[in-house]
């Protein structure tokens, strides 16, 4: 399905088949878009953009510099049979990763080579010997997938620390339904309720049957502050900043209010360095005085190098074959892999091991010769700081271009979110956040300026 053509490669189109015929599950959308015409679409887009701007649906690239989340409202449609595979694969990954983390911090895993795991910046020795409730370290999980075509979804990256994006997923779907009501005609879209899943998950982590839960934010200038506020409202849990919390004499965590100080049972934390925001919070967690969502030390497994061994984790801990493929990746500390990578740079993506949000991602086929030489030099100098992945020719989706008034193809990916409770059960939320790369780019991360798109799973 991925065939070469004029300028390099012809990519799989979500919207239409290779003969240019709109795919069946896009027929309704194509008809609705055609009915509105470019003028109609432009008008809707304009009013949607105004709404997003006025209501501060933001994603800041520079802290404190107002910027709304750029959105293309033309939905991405995932057929149910594709979704079933995705959901099974995502559930498998989070379960295996949680088993791995429990093993890593309690006794010794032997899936990932020692040097790899122990040089991870996010491996925390002080977590050794700690067991969170039911050994679940990662409660909220986001995995980035790309679609190669015909239901072949491939994992690119796991996000295990403080994955963000689910609010934009919900907001984009909600806004599309309001702004383009006729687009949903004829579609049966899978609905879901993250509120119950999240609250039940919080409850499963605390000895208190009715736990006091708060969402810890880095504040109103933080990149994903919109999401923090949105989830606080949706879940009905207070939004707190570092100075609102303190660790008391009894080792418990308290939230300061005008009334009194209230002990907290569960902190849905959206900050990375806990002690920087609340001194002593790390210790309180490790002493079992408070539950954290997600736990501490989870980043050891979302290190891009550790990613290489997730299929082995699935086989080892679940005794299953991986449902989702993942990008073929190379450990540059391994001499044979490094040789191969240096000789085949042209077909590879080089990623910095601990970068995120599309920073430090080099798609070699898309770069100039001088830049390639620099990357090669960097690999030689610091082989443990990078990983290499085979370049994937992943799918494109139509995006409405307001300037030209036409639909244009752009690369997309899909970040799927899942929650795992203290009882081990996993909810995978249908759809996900579809992210759109800038024209001519394959980097879809919102931190790199890409758009997002509403995503439907349809029956």
């Amino acid at each position: 399905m991925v065939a070469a053509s004029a300028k390099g490669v012809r990519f799989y189109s979500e919207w239409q088949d290779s003969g240019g015929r709109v795919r069946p599950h896009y027929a309704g959308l194509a008809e609705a878009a055609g009915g509105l015409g470019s003028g109609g679409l432009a008008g809707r887009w304009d009013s949607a953009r105004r709404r997003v701007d006025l209501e501060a649906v933001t994603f800041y690239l520079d802290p404190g510099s107002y910027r709304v989340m750029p959105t293309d409202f033309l939905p991405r449609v995932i057929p149910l049979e594709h979704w079933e595979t995705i959901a099974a694969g995502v559930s498998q990954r989070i379960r295996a990763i949680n088993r791995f983390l429990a093993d890593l911090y309690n006794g010794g895993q032997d899936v990932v080579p020692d040097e790899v795991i122990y040089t991870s910046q996010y491996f925390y020795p002080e977590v050794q010997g700690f067991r969170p409730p039911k050994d679940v370290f990662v409660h909220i999980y986001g995995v980035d997938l790309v679609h190669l075509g015909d239901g072949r979804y491939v994992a690119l990256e796991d996000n295990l620390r403080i994955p963000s994006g689910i609010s934009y997923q919900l907001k984009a779907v909600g806004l599309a339904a309001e702004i383009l009501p006729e687009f949903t005609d004829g579609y049966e879209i899978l609905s879901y309720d993250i509120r119950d899943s999240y609250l039940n998950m919080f409850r499963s982590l605390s000895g208190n049957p009715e736990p006091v839960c708060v969402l810890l934010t880095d504040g109103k200038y933080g990149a994903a502050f919109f999401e923090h506020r949105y989830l606080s409202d949706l879940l009905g849990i207070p939004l707190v900043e570092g100075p609102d919390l303190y660790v008391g004499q009894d080792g418990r965590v308290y939230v300061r209010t005008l009334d009194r100080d209230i002990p907290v049972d569960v902190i849905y934390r959206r900050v990375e360095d806990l002690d920087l925001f609340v001194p002593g919070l790390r210790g309180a967690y490790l002493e079992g005085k408070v539950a954290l969502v997600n736990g501490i030390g989870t980043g050891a497994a979302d290190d891009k190098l550790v990613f290489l061994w997730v299929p082995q984790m699935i086989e080892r801990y679940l005794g299953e074959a991986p449902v989702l493929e993942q990008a073929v990746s190379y450990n540059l500390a391994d001499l044979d892999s490094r040789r191969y990578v240096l000789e085949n740079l042209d077909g590879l993506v080089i990623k910095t091991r601990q970068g995120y949000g599309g920073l430090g991602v080099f798609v070699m086929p898309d770069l100039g010769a001088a830049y390639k030489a620099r990357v090669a030099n960097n690999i030689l100098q610091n082989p443990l700081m990078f990983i290499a992945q085979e370049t994937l020719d992943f799918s494109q989706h139509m995006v409405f271009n307001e300037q030209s008034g036409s639909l244009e193809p752009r690369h997309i990916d899909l970040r799927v979110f899942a929650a795992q409770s203290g009882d081990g059960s996993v909810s995978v939320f249908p759809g996900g956040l579809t992210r759109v790369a800038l024209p001519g780019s394959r980097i879809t991360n919102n931190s790199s300026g890409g758009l997002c798109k509403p995503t439907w799973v349809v029956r």
Partner: protein
Amino acid sequence: MSDSTDSRAIALGANRWITDSRVYNLVWLGRWIERAQTIARVVRWAARQDLDWGSQGLETVLGMAASIRGVNVGPGDTALEMMLTRDSSASLRGCLVAARFNATHVAPVEVIRVIGAAIELMDAQGPPITTPEGVGDLMDRVLPTLEELHATIEEAWFHSAPLSEEEVYRRFVQQQQQ
């Protein structure tokens, strides 16, 4: 609402606790809005003075407004920028932007929306403003939006709109039945 959501965490409620960070953002939200309104009023007052401005009219008007506000217009600055557009706490736009950040933390979306609408007016595309009249007209558009904020805060946040007769009766009956 399902049973599962009926927890103490919910009963206490997200926006019931007055945490330190809420207090901080509430105080500053109020201050920034008030400051924005004052700047807009002073600028409009200056722009509407019936004086012979000459060719330097706009700068003279806004310079007067700046001196009333205690804003220092340096040699490389224009009063238009200092008072209206610059990204700083002295300008009308700067105050509105700061207020919006506080509002995203603490205020309902209706309040965020009105602040956004005021910023939208400031940013509206059009011929550049070159005369005192132009500035006065802009303030005539912005000030009602800021007034609207008061009503929005009362209705969407403080819920102080008077109850209808039917509502008063309905609640009375409900109370009697309990």
